[in-house]
């Protein structure tokens, strides 16, 4: 008998292709449903994309199909990308936050407001309230809103002279 918790255990082992964090800790998994008709169970998984243009989505879908499909007793695996509710950085788990910070990626605090320079009123890429993940200093500044992936921005720490990445508040 397969239950949703058994499927979640499999999903917890699937890493995001672009970050040191599982897709469950990243908050991508919205719903798992298992329907048993006769011999094989059908599994339906709803995934929330971080950014619509994220090239990792087909990889994530394939990985889920392969790993969940390999569970004994599972027949059909259906992966659907949905937009309600929208993914948000607030869905990242505490474990996920620690793992990201250890790799130099910071995450906006739960429930915080937009932390990119204000709309229509900014020339200076000003000193930010975002603490450096390496030295803890707040003498950091936004270097670029566009980073190595669509969900991350590049910051620079004036205190320890390191670049680090910060996840966009969406």
């Amino acid at each position, binding site marked *: 008998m397969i239950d949703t918790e058994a499927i979640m255990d499999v999903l917890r082992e699937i890493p995001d292709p672009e970050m040191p964090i599982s897709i469950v800790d990243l908050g991508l998994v919205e719903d798992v449903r298992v329907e048993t008709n006769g011999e094989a169970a059908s599994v339906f998984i709803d995934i929330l*994309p971080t*950014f*619509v*243009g*994220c*090239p990792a989505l087909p990889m994530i879908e394939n990985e889920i199909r392969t790993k969940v499909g390999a569970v004994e007793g599972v027949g059909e695996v259906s992966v659907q990308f*949905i*937009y*309600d509710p*929208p993914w948000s950085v607030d869905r990242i788990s505490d474990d996920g936050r620690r793992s990201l910070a250890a790799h130099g990626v910071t995450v906006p605090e739960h429930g915080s407001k*937009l932390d*990119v*320079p*204000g*709309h*229509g*009123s*900014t*020339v200076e*890429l000003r000193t930010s309230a975002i603490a450096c993940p390496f030295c803890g200093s707040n003498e950091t500044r936004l*270097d*670029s*809103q*566009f*980073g190595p992936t*669509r969900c991350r921005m*590049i910051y620079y720490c004036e205190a320890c002279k390191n670049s680090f990445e910060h996840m*966009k508040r*969406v």
Partner: protein
Amino acid sequence: MDSLPENLKQPMIDLLLAVADDKLMLGHRNSDWTGLGPILEEDIAFSSLAQDEIAHAQVIYELLSPLVDKTADELAYGRSVDQYRCAQIVELPDNFDWAVAIARQFFCDHFDRLRLRALSHSSYKPLADVASRLAAEEQVHVDHVDAWIVRLGRGNDESKRRLQTALDQLSPMAPMLFEPVDREAELTGAGLYPQAETDMFHAWRDVLQHVAHEGGLALELSPPNAGAQGGRRGHHSEHLKSLLDEMCEVYRLEPGVAW
């Protein structure tokens, strides 16, 4: 609602084509800068903008797909020029003039954000869900281009002069972004595209002027003439054909084949 009233399908198809076609062409123009951005960060930024816009177009084409019984690829690459519904401003080549690229982005991104925010309140739920996600992403584009407008405006005499020239060049054409698609008012009446027509233009003009003035730049914008026909009705500049010839070159070799 999860499905559309039969009599409003056609105007909704035109509206969704307008949204997706604007994004596809603008994304294609953004990608012209890949490898040629004036600084490394900006090369990455314009490539990221292209990645976003083309992905946004794809999601909208996928919403359209069951309504027109065509795949997203067929919609993106398989139409004749007069079947596209993009505004003419996204078709223009910028000829690698950074000021023109930024000015165009300024007009288009602000319009796109307002349109997506309106659509996020659509009574057609599949569209509302997607639009509210896209609107959040579009905000990043708007913040980015606003910073450039102010920076170039306050930069030096040359940057200010070149950006002012680009704004003056594009401002007569930019309001045609607001040209309605055929029967658009019926969509608004039915709550499918909730907006107050004049309000959206004024909101757009006000925020653009606010940012331009912060950069010490002048910007005059008038609503499009009632009855003026442009891209939303299939009337395009000569640039769209050459853009499509380039963009669709591979697709046309063997339509439908999986590459």
